């Protein structure tokens, strides 16, 4: 008896938008099928913004869109059998073997680069400049006073660098070795742990240097600065003589991490125009970061923020749509 009244959770949460704007302006061929295109929503705001904007534009093209909340790793199971159709923000820096394996199976395909340029590296709250004079230059970390200030029971006598979770792959160890520093990397276990410690350190003004990445909403909340290092060049990883340390490779900053869009392999056939649109869809750091802070700091809803972007940037996305429906 309840099936008539049944509302799935996802529909309730997101039906507010879906049905409002739907001018099917692109001929009879779109949508190719009436079935909704299912986009995954993962656990962080930036990804929500990326996904929601793409979803709104797809709706304007005439598609039905459904948003599926999905864990970052489990979503690949959904993407390999078409339970979900596309995931629009996959960071190659923290996906481990999950994406390569899914790609190899042929069931999930890469739709192209998203355009975000993820910067990764060591950063610190701005008061650290008093503790390690010379920052943001990395050579400030060479001083033993600085290492001493960062030392903890686990790392004595070396200074402590808070590193990425082990399952994301660690870069700090190689950087410490490359730059010949008296530091030791300690892995945080999760994004929550990294953020908690940075927040707590900022409250107490205790010394901290951590591996982190941008774009991230934490930049809106804390005054964070990057440790400046020699700019990445491929030679840095191959040639020990390159860079400040003549004996080691890896004495430079990290290259930008790639962020890509992926889709279920059957999507291109099922919704060719939508797929072509997703191929050209781009998002930049300069666009995404203010939207993240509008949501996480100024408490606007995801929907308001995404709609505002779509209204304001009609010229940008119209080109992608035109190319897709041609």
């Amino acid at each position: 008896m309840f099936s008539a009244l049944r509302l799935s959770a996802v529909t309730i949460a997101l039906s507010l938008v879906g049905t409002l704007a739907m001018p099917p302006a692109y001929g009879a061929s779109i949508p190719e099928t009436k079935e909704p295109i299912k986009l995954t929503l993962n656990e962080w705001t930036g990804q929500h913004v990326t996904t929601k904007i793409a979803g709104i534009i797809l709706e304007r093209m005439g598609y039905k869109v459904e948003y599926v909340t999905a864990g970052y790793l489990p979503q690949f199971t959904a993407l390999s059998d078409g339970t979900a159709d596309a995931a629009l923000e996959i960071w190659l820096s923290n996906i481990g073997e999950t994406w390569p394996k899914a790609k190899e199976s042929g069931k999930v395909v890469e739709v192209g680069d998203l355009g975000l340029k993820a910067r990764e590296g060591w950063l610190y709250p701005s008061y650290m400049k008093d503790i390690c004079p010379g920052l943001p230059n990395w050579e400030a970390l060479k001083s033993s006073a600085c290492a001493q200030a960062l030392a903890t029971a686990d790392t004595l006598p070396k200074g402590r660098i808070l590193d990425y979770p082990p399952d994301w792959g660690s870069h700090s160890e190689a950087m410490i070795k490359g730059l010949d520093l008296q530091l030791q990397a300690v892995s945080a276990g999760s994004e929550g742990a990294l953020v908690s410690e940075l927040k707590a350190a900022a409250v107490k003004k205790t010394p901290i240097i951590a591996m982190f990445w941008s774009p991230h909403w934490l930049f809106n909340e804390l005054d964070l600065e990057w440790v400046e290092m020699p700019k990445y060049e491929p030679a840095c990883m191959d040639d020990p003589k390159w860079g400040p340390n003549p004996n080691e490779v890896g004495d430079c900053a990290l290259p930008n991490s790639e962020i890509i869009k992926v889709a279920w392999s059957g999507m291109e056939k099922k919704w060719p125009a939508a797929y072509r649109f997703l191929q050209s869809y781009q998002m930049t750091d300069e666009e995404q970061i203010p939207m993240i802070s509008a949501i996480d700091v100024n408490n606007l809803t995801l929907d308001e923020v995404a709609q505002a972007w779509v209204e304001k940037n009609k010229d940008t996305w119209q080109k992608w749509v035109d190319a897709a429906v041609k």
Partner: protein
Amino acid sequence: MPLFYFQHDLTWLTNTAVWLKGPIERGLNLVMDMFVANFSWAFGAISWLLSWPLTELQGMLQWLPWSVTLVAFTLVGFAAAGCRLAIFTAASLFYMVATGYWQESMNTLALVGVAAPLAAGVGFGMGVLGYRSGVARRVLIICLDLMQTVPAFSYLVPLLLLFGFGPVVGLIASAIYACPPMVRNVMHGLASVPSALVESGEMSGATRWQSFWWVRVPAALPQIMVGVNQTIMATLSMVIIASVIGGFNDIGWEVLSTMRKAQFGQSLMSGMVIALMAMILDRISAGFASHVRSTVNTPTVSRSNALAASALLLLALFAASMLFPAMRQWPSEWRVYPAAQINDFLSYTVSRYGWVFAEIKQIVNFCILLPLKIGWLRLFDATGYTISPVNQAAYWVAVLCAMLLASFAWKGRGAVLVALVAAACFFGLTNIPWPVLFMVVGVAAWQAGGVGTAGFSLAGMSFILMTGLWGPAMLSLYLCAAAVALSFVVGGALGALAASNDRFSAFIRPVNDTLQTIPQFVYLIPVIFLFQVGDFSALIAIVAFSIVPMIRYTEHGIRSIDHEISEAAIGMGCSTLQKRFQIDLPIASPAIMLGLNQTIMYALSMLVIAALVGTRDLGQSVYIALTNADTGAALTTGFSIAIIGMVADRIIQAWAKKRQRQLGLQEIRSA
């Protein structure tokens, strides 16, 4: 100890060869792939079948106005255990309404509403099977142990591959974890029905079928209801796994995503929903279970009247909620949501008293954790000091004195224990060569439970050794050992206090309930805020969870001491302290040991979650395998955690049984 001095030449003793890692993991992956390729249609069908009641129940709970659901649960609470439970139920559900989490809460309830009956049903079937056949029982007991100790994260990938993406995977993971207590209680209940009762049934001409369903099952019903109650609780503690996968918009998703953002207030408030739900369902099912036990039937006339009145009341409420939308959907302007204040409070505490916590951490790190992990020797090396031979000698002289003292107090075994602890602290648990650990555990198992237990322990340890997980396993062992020791001392003291002080007992019970049922992810943020990423934070997170059974069992053990014994002790002129240490604790020791057993299990199950703080142990290995979508590695790691748990369990259970026999006490069953 010449062994230790040659360690550099004998690195294979701590840095074990990895003979079987490849074959076992590849084999598991191969089996898994074949399984998925050939049987995924069957699992797909199961998944489809289960998703049907799930969406129906979800639809119904979402469709009902909150006021109707709230009153309905309150009435059920009243029927189960009277006025106090009714008030508690109403207040808890109102919390879910007022905080704006109603929709998510009802989705979680729908998950539990399908997973718990599923687990109870399957558990009943397996229990009957185990009761009928001895072979089945032996196989089942091993399976049940694995189901309870292999962390769900390590079979998440295979479950996803088999059942496909969606909430059903979470449902099945919860059911797997929740069905063992049902099986155990059904087997125990059916087996302990007095044979005279069954015979009298057969004499009056009952067939086998009739005597089973009409005599044996009703007689075992109280025990079976205990199983149902425990199954519900276990389901709730695992239901958050559904949120790791996503796709259901349940309250666990809120817990996880706020934890990721390090928003303590938000994660606490959403986590409380699960804790409250668990407490309500626990009390309600326990209430009905005790009705079954007391077998006092209320007159049917008044019961049907009450039912009719309740139905009328609910209908009236439904009608009213059609008139007043606020009774159907809580207006968002009325939302009570003090998350920001909670966060501010935490920040204030950290900025004001952060130094106190830093000091505590420092002391524990240097006096307990680091010695246990890497040993005094290396600790001093690392800090730049060297310990002179004189100091080393002084340490061992002190140890010898302690051993002498211990042997006076607790005979030879106490001395051995002191020697082991002292050696572990000197050399570090993670540096102990595996043959030494094999010997120590083997002897302990043999002493406690004979050749069988020893064989099982050695086989289990060999598995860990040969799959190349010895290093992470030793880190896990060190973390668990420290956590269990801390829980044992602090929890035992709190339990003893609760046993002698009713007021404290009433205070600690809801604290225990909350610690036990709130998703453990919630503790991680405040722990890191106060103590930073590191072993100490992981330790505190583990202790916060694993201390609960220690408190409970100690209190229970002391409170259930025969009055005559206590009175005899007082009559003989024992002082309070003498009575406590020489009468109460020894007599309660089997119960306390079972508490210790549970504490070990809880600590092991926290390893995977504590890894989110940042460890390098087996818990972390599970995540690494998960990120690499490596089923084989995830499963071998999961089995290794299970093996540590099962070895500890076998040894302690055997010891407790032996001790009970010595004291001439009745067998106390572990939960």
